[in-house]
């Protein structure tokens, strides 16, 4: 097996709205930056991958609209209807298989352009069994949060603390849209969305675009940039059934993380990995995911988050501010996690730089009502 590396990265900072450019223009900016970063021309690229969902774009067969802004005209190009981390996995496979040496992946969000996002998410529910109840899609998160808190004995305060912590951290991240100060009490007082889930515990959406250039070891050696190696990558889907899924624990996260750690030959993540970006689309998800990936025992993640929110404490989780602080970037969520890891591992994370960051981990989740997640381990060496 060849080693595979991220050799170039470009992104637009997450923003609440982006009326200044179309999705094409926004993605083009990220692509230009990524190619400059890698020191390549798109003409050298063997294949291009976009991660996008037609209903989010408002264009069916959106695949056809992806080549221009990446410089992919007359090139192999395909779309993956999944989170960006799965796109990274596809790039990795294309290179491992020997079909490509240099692959470009892209994901973006124009969430601000979607006037009926919750309705579209409702469309992810089963038409015969679930949609007739006309529920907000966040009820799925409400059900899960309730089961998770009951089973794990984590508290609502600890979930609220994740909001406080991640918004605070986002304040140090110029690429985050929702940095700011809030308190556990304020979060707990915010309106119930689907109790026990509260409004402030749901990540607000943001716009943005990420483009990454991925290369084989051989190809990476001939490029100017400092490669960040993909040591482990894995993605898992559980059964989608709402009726009989494992409600309390995130099995997909457990298995995706286990796969990525196994591949990277990591046995003790807390000691062998320096920073973690784990999905926090809803605040309780951060706790649930931290326990699922094995960083904390069941019921212990909440204490760690509460402690970290109360003062300076070494808690290298979601240094970027996560989805709660950066914004929910739809299919681009996972690639924004990759942005944070790559910046940290390169030592380019500015005010939030973690000292001696050598290895990072990302876990993305596709959002309600899914039970699909992907995990990656990236390394500087």
């Amino acid at each position: 097996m060849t080693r595979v590396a991220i050799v170039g990265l470009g992104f637009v900072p997450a923003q609440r709205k982006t009326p200044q450019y179309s999705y094409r223009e926004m993605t083009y900016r990220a692509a230009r930056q990524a190619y400059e970063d890698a020191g390549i021309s798109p003409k050298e690229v063997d294949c291009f991958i976009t991660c996008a969902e037609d209903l989010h774009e408002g264009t069916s067969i959106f695949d056809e609209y992806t080549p221009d802004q990446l410089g992919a005209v007359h090139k192999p190009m395909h779309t993956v209807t999944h989170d960006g981390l799965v796109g990274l996995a596809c790039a990795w496979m294309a290179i491992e298989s020997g079909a490509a040496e240099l692959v470009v992946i892209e994901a973006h969000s124009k969430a601000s352009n979607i006037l009926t996002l919750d309705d579209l998410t409702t469309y992810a529910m089963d038409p015969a069994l679930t949609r007739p109840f006309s529920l907000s899609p966040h009820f799925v998160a409400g059900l899960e949060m309730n089961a998770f808190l009951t089973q794990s004995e984590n508290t609502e305060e600890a979930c609220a603390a994740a909001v406080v912590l991640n918004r605070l951290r986002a304040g140090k991240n110029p690429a985050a849209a929702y940095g700011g100060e809030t308190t556990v009490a304020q979060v707990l007082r915010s309106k119930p969305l689907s109790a026990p889930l509260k409004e402030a515990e749901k990540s607000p959406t943001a716009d943005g675009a990420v483009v990454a250039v991925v290369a084989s070891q051989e190809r990476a050696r001939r490029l100017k940039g400092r490669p960040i190696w993909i040591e482990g990558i894995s993605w898992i889907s559980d059964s989608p059934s709402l009726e009989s899924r494992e409600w309390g624990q995130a099995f997909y996260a457990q298995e995706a993380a286990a796969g990525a750690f196994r591949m990277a030959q990591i046995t003790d993540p807390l000691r062998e990995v320096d920073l973690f970006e784990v999905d926090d689309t809803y605040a309780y998800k951060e706790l649930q995911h931290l326990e699922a990936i094995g960083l904390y025992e069941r019921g212990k993640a909440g204490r760690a988050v509460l402690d970290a929110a109360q003062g300076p404490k070494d808690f290298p989780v979601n240094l970027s501010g996560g989805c709660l602080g950066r914004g929910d970037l739809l299919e681009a969520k996972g690639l924004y996690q990759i942005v944070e890891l790559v910046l940290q591992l390169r030592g380019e994370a500015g005010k939030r730089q973690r000292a001696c960051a050598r290895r990072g981990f990302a876990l993305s989740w596709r959002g309600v009502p899914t039970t699909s997640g992907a995990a990656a381990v990236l390394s500087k060496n």
Partner: protein
Amino acid sequence: MTEVAQNVKWIGENWKKEEVLHGKVFTFSDRPQARYAWDTGEAIGRYLAGFKQGKILGVRCRGCQRIMVPPRIFCELCFRDISEWVTLKETGRIRTFSVCYVTWDMKRIRKPQIPAVIEIDGASEGMGILHLVEAPRGDKPWERLRAGTRVQAVWKPKGLRRGAVTDIRFWRVLTGNANAGH
């Protein structure tokens, strides 16, 4: 296939409308709420603003020298920024067309729509915009149209223009010079 399976009727298979209406078949229906407000961005935003003023705007790429319409702020072939804007003519020639007797939702219509790609005068060869050509009189309007037929934009009155491609009502065949320029 078992005998039982052969005797079962499935939804979508030979059911009569009455059987559905009278509840012999369980049904459920749903109506999508998919609404968007797309950002046009710089290129298409300026292009549409031009329509409101009665102008067709294009851009020139300094790499390949193509003059392009609809405009874009990057060249998809050279992969570089574009910042040079040009005003194009409101005449052009038909590159290809079709005479369409069904609407978007597949209803038959008597007076056909004629979608066409129109290469705009002043833009590079092969650069066209998709629009509608006014149907020439007669039973067989296609007999008066050819690839290469010259056409001119017919604009809506200024007060009715709203910055949309439909600010041009349609393209009218220029009389007497159907194949001019060849």
